[in-house]
């Protein structure tokens, strides 16, 4: 089919409503970098973009910007220059600074107790930083849980001695693991999550290190893209503190992922 025939179908293609055989023909011309069809379809995509721009303007919640930045781990750096994030992310630091200033005044007034108050302020700042980081993790976890294409899988349900829990896998947001009854690891060991891929010889992909809490519970988030189609299971092994490129121990968690993918 020549370009002249296809020309009148560019707009339909750009809107996603071209029919066969024109659709395949245009795709074929684009694939080979056709000098006529590439710029023609590009113009049609511009028209399509302008149709989108005609939508009535609406305002997303102020939290959305922060969510997006948090999802790439940018909360702190973005907060330095974006007014919206600056308001929400720096308040603990300002609060800590105020507390520190107040403590300093009290320390001067009380003389001998200044050192104790200063240490208290430093502890408070550290706690606030820790809470900010925790909020970031929870935001990422929520994004995975609420994602429309998130797949859920359980593990450990039939075992007499769990660990038990669930994993949630979203193709664009990452993997969330929630586990309980994890055995305590020794001081020089750590848990490492893996994405086990289909096919013989396919190496498992490392998906982050984590520790369990004293009560055996753990929540681990590995943000980012996941090729769900090639993933067979999510697994967890115990590794040395630095982690490993490949599993070196028998997994104590294996959560198979359903093969159907969006």
């Amino acid at each position: 089919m020549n370009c002249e025939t296809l020309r009148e179908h560019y707009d339909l293609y750009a809107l996603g409503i071209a029919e066969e055989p024109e659709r395949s023909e245009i795709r074929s011309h684009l694939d080979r970098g056709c000098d006529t069809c590439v710029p023609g379809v590009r113009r049609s995509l511009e028209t399509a973009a302008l149709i989108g721009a005609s939508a009535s303007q609406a305002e997303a919640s102020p939290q959305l910007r922060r969510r997006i930045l948090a999802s790439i781990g940018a909360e702190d750096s973005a907060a330095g220059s974006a007014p919206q994030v600056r308001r929400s992310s720096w308040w603990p630091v300002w609060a800590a600074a105020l507390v520190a200033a107040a403590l300093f005044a009290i320390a001067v007034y009380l003389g001998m107790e200044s050192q104790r108050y200063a240490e208290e302020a430093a502890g408070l700042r550290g706690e606030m930083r820790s809470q900010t980081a925790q909020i970031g993790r929870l935001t990422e976890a929520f994004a995975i849980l609420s994602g429309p294409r998130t797949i859920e899988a359980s593990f450990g349900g039939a075992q007499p001695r769990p660990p038990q829990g669930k994993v949630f896998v979203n193709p664009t947001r990452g993997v969330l693991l929630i586990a309980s009854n994890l055995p305590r690891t020794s001081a020089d060991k750590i848990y490492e999550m893996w994405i086990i891929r289909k096919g013989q010889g396919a190496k498992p992909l490392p998906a982050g290190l984590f520790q369990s809490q004293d009560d055996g519970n753990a929540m681990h988030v590995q943000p980012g893209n996941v090729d769900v189609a090639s993933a067979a299971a999510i697994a967890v092994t115990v590794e040395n503190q630095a982690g490993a490129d490949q599993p070196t121990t028998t997994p104590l968690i294996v959560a198979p992922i359903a093969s159907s993918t969006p």
Partner: protein
Amino acid sequence: MLPLILALYASPEERALIERLQRREHQALAELYDRYGRMAYSVILRMVRDKSTAEDLVQETFLRVWNRVQSIDAAKGAVGPWLLAIARNGAIDYLRSSAGRERNAVELNETGHAPLYGEMEAEILLSDQARRARAAMDKLAPNYRTVMELAYFEGLSQSEMSVRMGQPLGTIKTWVRAALQCLRDELGTAVSS
């Protein structure tokens, strides 16, 4: 001619933004959101009609852009229209999934293919043209406007429009072509030639 002239001179800022995204500068994503976040949200909300879902899909859109930005040519690319295509494709994908409709992902993914957005006017979505696009849509005859909205905002094929509107497929095809021609006539100077 003005938009075309603007295209030659107004894109360095956008190019710089793409290059910063490709260098994985987090602040660049914040600026990208400040530029296009509202538009992406508006389009997606218009499509899915649910604020919470729309925000999820906007987040997904920006993460896709962040993860795929290496595929766009910083020297030529227009990240706005590309982002909008990704936003729309994601929303259509969601609508089709939630309605149990047949997916059409191949073609939709192709319209989100970054190289197609090379040499496109970088500022096309940021200038006065968005207002002109609204005016052009408003000018369309009701049936023409309906088929454009069903195609763009609901991702319906012409056959699906035929069923939805209770009109013969041939009539729908005529309306679609006529509507596109009217839009082209109205926006003729808005798109590069």
